[in-house]
C-alpha cells in the first residue's frame, strides 16, 4: 500500500505533522465542549435539583 519514495522519511513526517496538527485542532473544541457541557449540567443540577439538600 505504501509506495516507495525517495526521501520517504521526510515526506511521511511532513504528512504526519499535518495529520497531528489537524487532529489536535479537531480535538481541542471537542474536549472543551465535553468539559463545558459537563460543568454547565452540573451547575444546573446544583441550582435546581438540590435546594439545601446537598451533603
Amino acid at each position, binding site marked *: 500500500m505504501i*509506495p516507495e*519514495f*525517495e*526521501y*520517504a522519511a*521526510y*515526506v511521511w*513526517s*511532513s*504528512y504526519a*505533522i*499535518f495529520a497531528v*496538527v*489537524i487532529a*489536535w*485542532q*479537531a480535538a*481541542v*473544541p471537542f474536549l*472543551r*465542549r465535553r468539559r*463545558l*457541557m459537563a460543568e*454547565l*449540567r452540573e*451547575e*444546573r443540577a446544583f441550582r435546581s435539583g438540590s435546594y439545601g439538600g446537598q451533603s
Partner: protein
Amino acid sequence: MSAFHTLKVGFHRLGSPPNFYRLCTRLAPWFWAGFVITAAIGLYQALYVVPPDYQQSDSYRILFIHVPSAWQALAGYAIMAVLAAIALIWRIRTTEILAMACAPVGAAFTLICLATGAIWGKPMWGTWWVWDARLTSMLVLLFIYLGIMGLYAAFEDRRKGARVACILVLVGVVNIPIIQFSVEWWTTLHQGSTINLFGESTMDPSMMPPLIWMTIAVKLMFTAVMIQRASLDLIDQDRRKRWVEDVIGEQNA
C-alpha cells in the same frame, strides 16, 4: 430588494448569541465532512497519482501540505482582519468572538508551514532552516498570531480583550505586507540569487489538482474549527445567561 433585505436581517440575526450558536453547531459537521472528503481526494492524488518531480524526486510532495498551509495562514489572517474591522466598527460581540477564534487555527497552519518547510529544506539544502523569504515571513506571522492570542488571553474582561486584540489585528494588516516586502528585499540583498523553496516556479499541470484539492480541504477545516471554537467561547462567556440554560435543557431532553 427583498434578497438584500433577507441578507441584512440574516446578518443582524447572527449578532444574537443563541442564533449564532445554533448556526455554528449546525454547520460545523458539514464543514468537517467536506474537509474529510476533499482531503482524502487531495492526499490520494498527492501520494499515489502524481509522478516524482524531475529535480526534487519525491520530496516535493511536501509541497501539497506546505503551500496550502501557507496560503491558509495568510487567508485566515485576512478573514480575521475583516471580522476585526466589523467588530470594532459595529461593536458586534459575536463578531469579536469569531475573530478571536481565527487566531489559534491560523497559528496552527503557520506552524505546519514552518515545520514542513524545515523538513523540505533538509534534503534540498542540507540544513533544517533556510532563511528564505517565505519561511522568514511565516515565522514573523507566527509571532503576530501568538501576540494576538496572548493579548486576548491576558485580559480578564473577555470583551475588552477582544476589542484590544482586534486593534492589533488591524495593525497587523498594515504590517504584514510591509514585512513580506522587506523580507523579500532582505533575501535578495544578502544572498544574490533568490533561493526559492519551490525550485522552478512553473509547475507541471498534472501537479495542480492535488494542490487545489488540498487548498479547498484546508479552507473547509479552518472554517469548521473556527466556528466550533467561536461557539464554545460564546457558551463559556454566556454561562449565566438564560439562553445557555435553554440549550443545556434541549441537550438533556
